[in-house]
């Protein structure tokens, strides 16, 4: 499948602090990919590198096959960018901002898509964006992106500052638009439930590297939480469990319950615990939503 985004061996530092080293990933055409990671793992850094507002120490980002640092300006017509906090020109109103952008996208601008969304906002056409709520501003930003009708959308933390109603509206509009027109979307969000409704694939970032990149259903169907009671009171998680790469973040509760996360089947987990000589009570398995799976993969702290 053709890749719309390709990041190859990205290394970036802020001063002496390493954000990541030799990070590589790609986003295939027509997929919605969500970037998940704890605070400080480099999500916004990645968006900034992709949109060309940050120069990596080494490596390169390519969009539609062109390096973002030296990209042909005309190619930006096919890239929609949503900046964190849905930033737009505060000094313009709904009509002025549409008129301004329309001139840059002749032949592809869909005025009606913008005004269709604007009808849902209870604001006067002459109201300035600076006087709008976060939710209203997010709809203006989304409306402009839909009107631009780009092949690729890059969204930085689109759910920040939005109430559940606006978040849902944003997600549904975006998902319908992307799927019906075969568009590619690369996004980050702190609200994992939103990503679960929206994305096809996800990249989970840990400090300094990518933990995994896979289709969402691979996590939903295959990743589970297992727990069982240990008969002996242990002060620490048994060392063999910590060393087994198939188990994510095994932990002991105060009551002596062992909790661990894994992509393994229940029988295989059982088998491994026995092989490690860890006596335990009956093993329970929980299905996880994406947020729990994210915690399981990255740890609570």
């Amino acid at each position, binding site marked *: 499948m053709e890749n719309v985004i390709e990041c190859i061996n990205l290394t970036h530092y802020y001063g002496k602090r390493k954000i990541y080293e030799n990070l590589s990933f790609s986003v295939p055409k027509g997929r919605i990919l969500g970037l998940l990671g704890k605070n400080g793992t480099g999500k916004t850094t990645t968006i900034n590198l992709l*949109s060309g*507002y940050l*120069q990596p120490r080494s490596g390169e980002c390519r969009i539609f096959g062109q390096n973002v640092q030296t990209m042909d*300006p005309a190619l930006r017509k096919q890239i929609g*960018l949503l900046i964190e906090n849905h930033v737009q*020109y*505060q*000094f313009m109103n709904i009509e002025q901002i549409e008129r301004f952008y329309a001139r*840059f996208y002749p032949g592809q601008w869909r005025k009606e898509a913008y005004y269709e969304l604007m009808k849902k906002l209870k604001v006067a056409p002459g109201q300035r964006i600076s006087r709008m709520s976060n939710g209203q501003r997010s709809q203006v930003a989304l409306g402009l992106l839909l009107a631009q009708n780009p092949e690729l959308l890059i969204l930085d933390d689109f759910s920040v500052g939005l109430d559940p109603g606006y978040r849902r509206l944003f997600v549904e509009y975006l998902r319908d638009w992307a799927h019906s027109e075969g568009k590619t979307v690369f996004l980050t969000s702190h609200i994992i439930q939103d990503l679960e409704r929206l994305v096809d694939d996800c990249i989970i970032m840990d400090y300094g590297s990518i933990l995994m990149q896979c289709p969402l259903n691979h996590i939903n169907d295959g990743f589970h939480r297992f727990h069982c009671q240990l008969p002996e009171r242990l002060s620490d998680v048994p060392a063999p469990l910590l060393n087994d790469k198939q188990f994510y973040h095994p932990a002991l509760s105060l009551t002596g319950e062992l909790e661990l996360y894994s992509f393994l089947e229940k029988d295989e987990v059982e088998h491994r615990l026995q092989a490690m000589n860890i006596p335990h009570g009956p093993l329970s398995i929980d299905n996880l939503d994406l947020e729990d799976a994210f915690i399981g993969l990255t740890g609570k702290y």
Partner: protein
Amino acid sequence: MFYKEWIKTRWALLFILIVTCGYVGYELLNFLRAIGAMGGAHIWIAMITKDEPMFVRHLQYLPMVAGIALACVQFFPEMYHKCLKLTLHLPCSHLRMMFQMLGFGLCALLVCFGLNYLILWLTMRSSLAPELYGKMLLVALPWYLAGFAAYLLSAWIILEGSWARRIFNLVVMFLCLKVFYLSSFPDAYVPFLPCLIVFVLACVLLPWISIDRFKKGIE
């Protein structure tokens, strides 16, 4: 791009136009009142013997303030929540967009300062000999060039992302602008005017340094 700049600055431009023209008008009223009170001949003699820029002296910092004010109105909104990213994401060459933004500001100042000069010229030519009012207009020219330079240097500072660098730029701006105010002696700047004009033109490139640093994420 001009449309965006116009929406952003139109009220500020009107304000700057009214204030600068109003101030010039106020100074000219003083001039006309002095002519009425003391007679034209007395003023002529005073201007020739004192050899200093009577009546226009109070205008010297006005264009500089106007230039700084316009740069603030035009470029602070671009840096608010890093809105400049939106501008730089438009499908045009970054250099071209920067020149369009600066071109708009320079044209607006040109109209404003041109109107100031026109008012000065029309009023003075009715009461003064061409040599006298020519000298006064020439004295004011470096101050108006300082207005353009102040605009460009302010844009350079505002578009800069790093505070430490902004302070450094501010010091450079202060020193550069000082060159325009070394003397208010008539004809003092005449041989130096072409250099000042070249300096102002060269300042057009300075905001590009800030934009380039912004693109590299230097804060």
